[in-house]
């Protein structure tokens, strides 16, 4: 039986849609607000031990000797593990690029500050930390490899001798006749950019409780794990276990944003549990561990970019060279962040050809992780600065230059040069609404006045695409072993008509359990409270990937509605039998089955469920009597990458325009955001409250990346940002009030027309803020080419421009 999932809100079987698409209060909130939600560190298991990890203080050193006997002898210590145990009992972690993973504990050499060297399981965390001090270890420090450009030179020492190179990947992708486009272009703009490391910083650090059952050889991992089934497959590979012997129980997350990581020390805790005869071992990362050695750091990038523009101000080609410093290995999926830009390489613009020269380089820094947006935010930062450089040089208003180059609304579905397909959009409408909302004309007048008075006032207009609903094929080009992205839900109706929906993911903050309730309640015409959402462990749940790549809202909508449709189909057969008619004559609407025009022919969902479970005599002979169904939703039509990496990967393309006004204090270099307007189009908004929250939070993270946040290393690869006094998360006082509006062009490809929207604004915010800063600095001839644009950096750019020391920008004559 083909399952038809409604493509828009009107397709739901209800005359009064009360929940889906409406501003619904979250069902997750009462427990969170009263401190009753059980997070990982709130869990205490019988006989549980606590883990502390000894970490390398050196970025690169040989371990000359390691002696844990004194630690093992301390009271309360139950197990100690070292790299030797890791090599005996586990394999190197899967990685991207393939082969660049490592064991969870260092062997003869440490490769970054914070790399685990040994670990203790003891009666308490304090006792475990005390025991670390009894471990005797001698290092012979080696010169660290810090600069990725030096690291690529043949004479450079190697981060990992066995690899024979520091280049994890060196590949050029060419999409179309790029050389011809640049040769023919009357204007070619070139510029270099630097994006410094930033990262997710969820308020809850990562943690896991690991239990290795020595009798059944089964592993159970509880943890604040984003993609539980994928994580479980990874642990099975690391420990050589059958995949059905690893059970992952995901606990609610205190934020995630892609940067939870945690596989390395989860594996350490698993080894400790094995050594401690199967006692559960809890590992909780502290904030300093998170900042220096957790899933914390992303996007350490050096860009060279070229833009070709024709005489009609149309962009005709884009070349991007990226040197991405991934740190000491490819394990925590940092590389996928360099692959994802292919899903939206040319942004919202109809740029016909492009090229991507991608170098992933190993250094002795922390291996880099994903972070919300997974790579496009730096890409759009550089693309949008290039658009402004071109517009400024050609004396065209930056908003109009973008309008001229937008993909027109009648061109969708639209395939970009790097192979992905955008589903729908109306970019000009979004731009117009944003300009109106921000009072763009008024801002330009204000700017003219400010400039006349010698003040540094800038306006930035930026637009970007948020690829949504990811598929692993997007990451195949960096050698990532994909495990599929199914999302399943099991909908069950009990004998009294109450509904349970079993899902495979934990709460993360995006109101997904509320969404599941909205869908089931509107579908079956009941109250939200009649729906219970039950998270399942990975061995019990239907196939699930969970949140990631702005996919879960769309995917779980497909799963829940698919399961509801299956139940409706089954119940329709039951009702047809009872009403002595054919199933085609039965209509289901507003929670009732009936025959149109036949009075009294009406049964509620509860009545049908009760009949199915209690009255076998009334059922069609061959029917499965469970009022239950599972549906697994996957995005249709995703393709394998071709020789140039081109694939249909992300299913949806949301778009936004941000307009930002800033003023810079020339004395201090401090940037103040005076106005911030956002208009976005992410298709149907399933719970507009949640969509708004995603956008607001994502803007704040974008402002952090643009102005404040940076993981700083010194010249010897020592991390300097190891507390929240050094790594500057924006507070309420750094975030401006947002002016917001929206445009809705539903996706033709997804359940209810929704698009991925969870990463959203961070794609555009750093670009927009830097566009505004560059606009403010333009009269001085100063240019911002690096984020974060801290006061110190901005002040220096102003001084350099005053001294005539900034290198000339921009347009190269083209021969």
């Amino acid at each position, binding site marked *: 039986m083909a399952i038809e999932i409604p493509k828009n809100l009107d397709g739901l079987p209800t005359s009064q849609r009360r929940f889906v698409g409406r501003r619904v209060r979250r069902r997750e909130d009462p427990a969170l*607000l*009263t401190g009753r939600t059980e997070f990982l560190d709130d869990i205490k298991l019988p006989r549980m031990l606590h883990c502390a990890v000894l970490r390398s203080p050196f970025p690169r050193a040989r371990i000359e000797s390691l002696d844990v006997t004194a630690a093992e002898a301390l009271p309360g210590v139950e197990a100690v593990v070292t790299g030797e145990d890791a090599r005996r009992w586990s394999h190197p972690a899967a990685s991207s690029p393939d082969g660049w993973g490592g064991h969870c504990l260092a062997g003869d050499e440490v490769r970054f500050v914070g790399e685990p060297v040994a670990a203790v399981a003891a009666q308490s965390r304090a006792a475990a930390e005390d025991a670390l001090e009894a471990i005797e270890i001698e290092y012979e420090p080696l010169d660290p490899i810090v600069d990725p450009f030096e690291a690529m030179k043949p004479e450079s020492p190697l981060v990992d001798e066995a690899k024979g190179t520091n280049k994890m990947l060196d590949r050029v992708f060419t999409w179309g006749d790029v050389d011809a486009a640049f040769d023919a272009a009357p204007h070619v703009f070139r510029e270099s950019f630097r994006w410094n490391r930033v990262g997710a910083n969820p308020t809850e650090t990562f943690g896991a409780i690991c239990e290795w059952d020595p009798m059944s050889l089964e592993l159970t991992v509880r943890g604040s794990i984003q993609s539980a089934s994928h994580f479980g497959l990874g642990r099975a590979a690391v420990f050589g276990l059958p995949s059905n012997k690893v059970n992952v129980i995901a606990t609610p997350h205190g934020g995630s944003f892609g940067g939870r990581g945690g596989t390395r020390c989860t594996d350490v805790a698993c080894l400790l549990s094995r050594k401690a005869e199967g006692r559960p071992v809890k590992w909780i990362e502290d904030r*300093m561990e998170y900042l220096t050695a957790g899933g914390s750091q992303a996007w350490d990038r050096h860009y060279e970019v070229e833009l070709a523009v024709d005489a009609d101000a149309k962009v005709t080609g884009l070349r991007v060279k990226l040197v991405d410093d991934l740190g000491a290995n490819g394990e925590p999926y940092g590389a996928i962040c360099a692959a994802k830009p292919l899903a939206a390489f040319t942004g919202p613009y109809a740029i016909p050809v492009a090229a991507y020269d991608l170098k992933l380089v190993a250094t002795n820094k922390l291996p880099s992780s994903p972070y919300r947006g997974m790579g496009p935010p730096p890409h759009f930062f550089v693309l949008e600065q290039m658009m402004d450089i071109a517009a400024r040089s050609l004396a065209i208003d930056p908003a109009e230059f973008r309008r001229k180059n937008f993909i027109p609304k009648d061109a969708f579905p639209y395939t970009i040069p790097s192979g992905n397909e955008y589903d729908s959009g109306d970019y000009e409408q979004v731009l117009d609404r944003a300009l109106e909302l921000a009072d763009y004309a008024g801002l330009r007048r204000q700017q003219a006045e400010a400039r006349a008075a010698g003040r540094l006032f800038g306006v930035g207009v930026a637009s970007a695409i948020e690829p949504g609903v990811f598929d692993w094929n997007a990451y195949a080009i960096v050698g990532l072993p994909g495990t599929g992205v199914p999302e399943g839900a099991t909908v069950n109706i009990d004998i009294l008509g109450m509904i349970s929906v079993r899902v495979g993911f934990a709460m993360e903050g995006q109101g997904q359990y509320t969404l599941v309730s909205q869908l089931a309640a509107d579908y079956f015409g009941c109250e939200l409270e009649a729906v219970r959402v039950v998270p399942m462990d990975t061995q019990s749940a239907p196939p699930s990937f969970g949140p990631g790549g702005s996919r879960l809202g769309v995917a779980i909508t497909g799963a829940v509605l698919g399961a509801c449709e299956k139940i409706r189909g089954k119940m329709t057969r039951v009702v047809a039998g009872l009403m002595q008619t054919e199933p085609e004559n039965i209509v289901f609407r507003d929670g009732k089955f009936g025959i149109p025009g036949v009075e009294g022919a009406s049964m509620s969902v509860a009545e049908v469920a009760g009949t199915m479970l209690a009255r076998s005599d009334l059922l069609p002979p061959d029917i499965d009597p469970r009022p239950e169904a599972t549906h697994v939703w996957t995005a249709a039509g995703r393709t394998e990458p071709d020789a140039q990496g081109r694939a249909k990967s992300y299913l949806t393309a949301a778009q936004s325009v941000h307009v930002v006004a800033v003023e810079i204090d020339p004395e201090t270099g401090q940037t103040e955001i005076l106005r911030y307007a956002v208009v976005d189009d992410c298709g149907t908004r399933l719970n507009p409250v*949640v969509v708004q*929250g995603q956008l607001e939070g994502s803007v704040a993270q974008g402002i952090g990346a643009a102005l404040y946040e940076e993981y700083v290393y010194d010249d010897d690869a020592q991390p300097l940002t190891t507390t929240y006094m050094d790594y500057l998360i924006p507070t309420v006082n750094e975030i401006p009030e947002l002016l917001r509006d929206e445009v809705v062009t539903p996706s033709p490809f997804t359940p209810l027309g929704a698009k991925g929207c969870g990463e959203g604004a961070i794609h555009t915010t750093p670009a927009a803020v830097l566009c505004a800063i560059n606009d403010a600095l333009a009269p001085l001839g100063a240019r911002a080419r690096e984020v974060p644009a801290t006061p110190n950096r901005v002040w220096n750019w102003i001084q350099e421009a005053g001294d005539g020391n900034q290198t000339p920008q921009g347009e190269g004559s083209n021969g």
Partner: protein
Amino acid sequence: MSPTRIPVRLRVNGRPAEGLAEPRTSLVDFLRDELDLTGTHVGCEHGVCGLCTVRVDGVAVRGCLMLAVQADGAEILTVEGLASPDGKLHPLQEAFAEEHGLQCGFCTPGFLMALHELIDDEPNPSEEQIRDVLGGQLCRCTGYAGILRAVQSAFAKLGASPSTESGA
């Protein structure tokens, strides 16, 4: 060589409580591990993020920067003590739910406790006073917009009423 454990007696959310703490044990660890009050969360353990904020003798303090032994004899209020015993949310909690003032909710108990002190101290706070309190708390999900809406709504609801209800 196990360090000495010292008895700590205090009142938490209106009830007497006691437990043993090593001299080095922080108040938040004592509340969570010894008294099983896990509603108060730990975010940074160096006094910046504000997640572990609880009220000690009426003052909003960071549970990671105070030792458990220092709280001997104190009256503590934690997030578990905000709602009525019948499950009715405190107006502040209600406002957070209404205005989407939380996403993952991990930082929320700290925000609630910091604001709870403000409600008692200043029934009609200025925007500046509100921002001063919120500026000591980090949230990574909301961008603070929903939190600001919630705070405005909570104070509007509480009106000029001088005191707040709580379990304490």
